[in-house]
């Protein structure tokens, strides 16, 4: 268990291409209408993680949150330890394979040395021996990626949220949900909970290793705030009151969750990863195709979805701003 400040030969952060957000944002809509559905698609890349230019900033924020209130961001049942090692194994190998300049792994049997060259950290541990890591395996490896990670166990014909490291939840609570079944933790979602959740659960229970799935979820967040815990509702929700016609473009952010689902063959559990991306409406508007899709989505959105996502208060304002901004772009000849 060591975190050496090693001088590695790799130069690091500069290698992440600082492409503007608008060029790489995972815009989730291809249609002009949005309803709850099983919008899962096969994940062709087979990859769980993405390292973006925000890596250092976000990993630092995660670690600070974990330090400040550990149980709010980390929950686990002891029977998930094997699945946790499986997740650690999968993530370390993916990082080292896909980003060899940023991460590496050296193995002598069960003696592993994992290096994070971006953060200039190195850890040696015995695979499978919990006391050789500074934290539980899921808690440890989650501190090296931007994604939130949830382990969902499949037992006796149901799915349970059995462990998670979640620092950037979109208005939900890990502490509240841990130990619940799939339909239980989805019960606040209107329409989805009674029409779709059981079907989606059955679909997930049939998921196979080697055939991972992915889906986008989205919502709106006022200001660039990643940690919107249900527990801290009083801190971030009142910000909605500040939204005006003048500042909405800067204040309101489209929040997209890139979610990926993997069957873990050794534990027969499911790994659910969430990479949350935020972009201000103003920046989003730089892509006129996206702006138009988003305007149409908002204008077509049923009230129950806006209400659940928490922006029905400023939805008229939003709709007006989107239409005006689009109108202006069209008049100016647009930037299509």
């Amino acid at each position, binding site marked *: 268990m060591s975190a050496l400040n090693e001088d590695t030969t790799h130069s690091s952060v500069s290698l992440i291409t600082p492409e503007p957000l608008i060029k790489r944002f995972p815009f989730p809509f291809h249609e002009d209408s949005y309803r709850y559905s099983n919008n899962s698609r096969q994940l062709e890349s*087979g990859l769980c993680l993405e390292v973006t230019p925000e890596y250092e900033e976000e990993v630092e924020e995660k670690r600070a949150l974990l330090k400040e209130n550990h149980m709010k961001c980390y929950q686990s049942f002891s029977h998930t330890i094997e699945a946790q090692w499986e997740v650690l194994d999968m993530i370390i190998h993916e990082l080292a394979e896909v980003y060899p300049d940023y991460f590496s792994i050296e193995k002598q049997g069960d003696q592993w040395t994992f290096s994070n060259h971006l953060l200039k950290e190195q850890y040696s541990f015995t695979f499978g021996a919990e006391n050789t890591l500074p934290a539980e395996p899921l808690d440890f490896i989650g501190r090296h990626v931007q994604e939130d990670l949830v382990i969902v166990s499949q*037992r*006796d014909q149901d799915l349970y949220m059995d462990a998670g490291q979640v620092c950037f939840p979109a208005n939900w609570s890990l502490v509240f949900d841990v130990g619940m079944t799939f339909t239980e933790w989805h019960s606040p979602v209107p329409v989805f909970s009674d029409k779709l959740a059981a079907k989606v659960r059955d679909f997930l229970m049939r998921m*196979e290793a080697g055939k991972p799935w992915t889906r986008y979820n989205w919502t709106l967040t006022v200001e660039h705030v990643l940690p919107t815990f249900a527990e801290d509702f009083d801190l971030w929700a009142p910000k909605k009151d500040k939204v005006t016609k003048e500042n909405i473009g800067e204040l309101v952010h489209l929040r997209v969750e890139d979610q990926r689902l993997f069957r873990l*063959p*050794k534990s027969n559990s499911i790994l659910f990863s969430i990479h949350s991306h935020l972009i201000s409406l103003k920046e989003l508007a730089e892509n006129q195709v996206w702006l138009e899709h988003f305007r149409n989505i908002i204008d077509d959105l049923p009230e129950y979805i806006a209400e659940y996502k928490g922006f029905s208060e400023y939805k008229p304002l939003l709709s007006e701003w989107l239409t005006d901004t689009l109108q202006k772009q069209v008049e100016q000849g647009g930037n299509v």
Partner: protein
Amino acid sequence: MQTKSLQVLVNRIEDETTNVKSFTLKSLKGERLPGFSPGSHITTNIHYKGEKLERHYSIACDPSVSNQYVLGIRKSETSRGGSEGWHQMIKEGDLLEISYPKNHFPLSFRARKHLFFAAGIGITPFIEMMFYLKKKGIDFDLHYAAKSKELCPFYQLITENFPDQSHFYFSSSNRKMFPQLMKDQPIGTHVYFCGPESMVKQFAAYAQSAGYPQGNIHFELFSPPDMGPASPFNVKLLKSKKEIHVCEKDTLLDVLLREGIDAPYSCKVGGCGSCLLEVADGIVDHRDQFLTEKEKENLQVILPCVSRAKSANLMLDL
């Protein structure tokens, strides 16, 4: 990162009995194989006599030993080619492409005790389960029927590793395995059956009558159950605007795949639910073990790998 399939090397082939061979599959040099959970199987594809044969085999070895899978394959007299291909053609040193381990026969998490009933080659999934449970110190018993000690696959491995839990029933010595063994078990016992359809049916029916809750009864079938004669039917595909004919010998899934339709599937014996499709119109002749009786009544769905049509026509939203 997960790739679509796995490359393995046939490392060793051994005769378990006169008609069962075990195949030890290992990773290629320097590569790793994914682990597997107890109850898992892999899907294999071999080309034999000009046919592509897809078969599923349970992994008959200790899940805590990494980078190897052992398959126990019986050369079946009624072989549709798969097991014959494995016995005749596969040699040590061959490279094979296989699926990731999949588990349609998982151990119960909440069981207090696991009671296994195997007949013949049906033993294979219980081997992985027993290694796992023994390591965890969880209570189990195995009842295992075979023709004789000599014709009992994995007899030595089982007596060596699980001497206190295994009970054998050889027809050569007139010992019969009765379902009544399920009587007088502690509350929280889960029962598992693997073997020919007739045996699984008999034991499952007994378990139910003995008061085991449905969720405590687990079984795995190797071939689709015999549901009586299959009649031909027609299917209209609404999205692809096609009409297809399914003859007696084919399954609906076969025909869909042949038509180039990207239909999902996995077990092909009506046990996993992967191939489930919505039915727009028509009456389904349900032949699967996956949907509950209630679901068969209430849902407009079909598992095309085994189920057929009661009406002359079906309409699918494909």
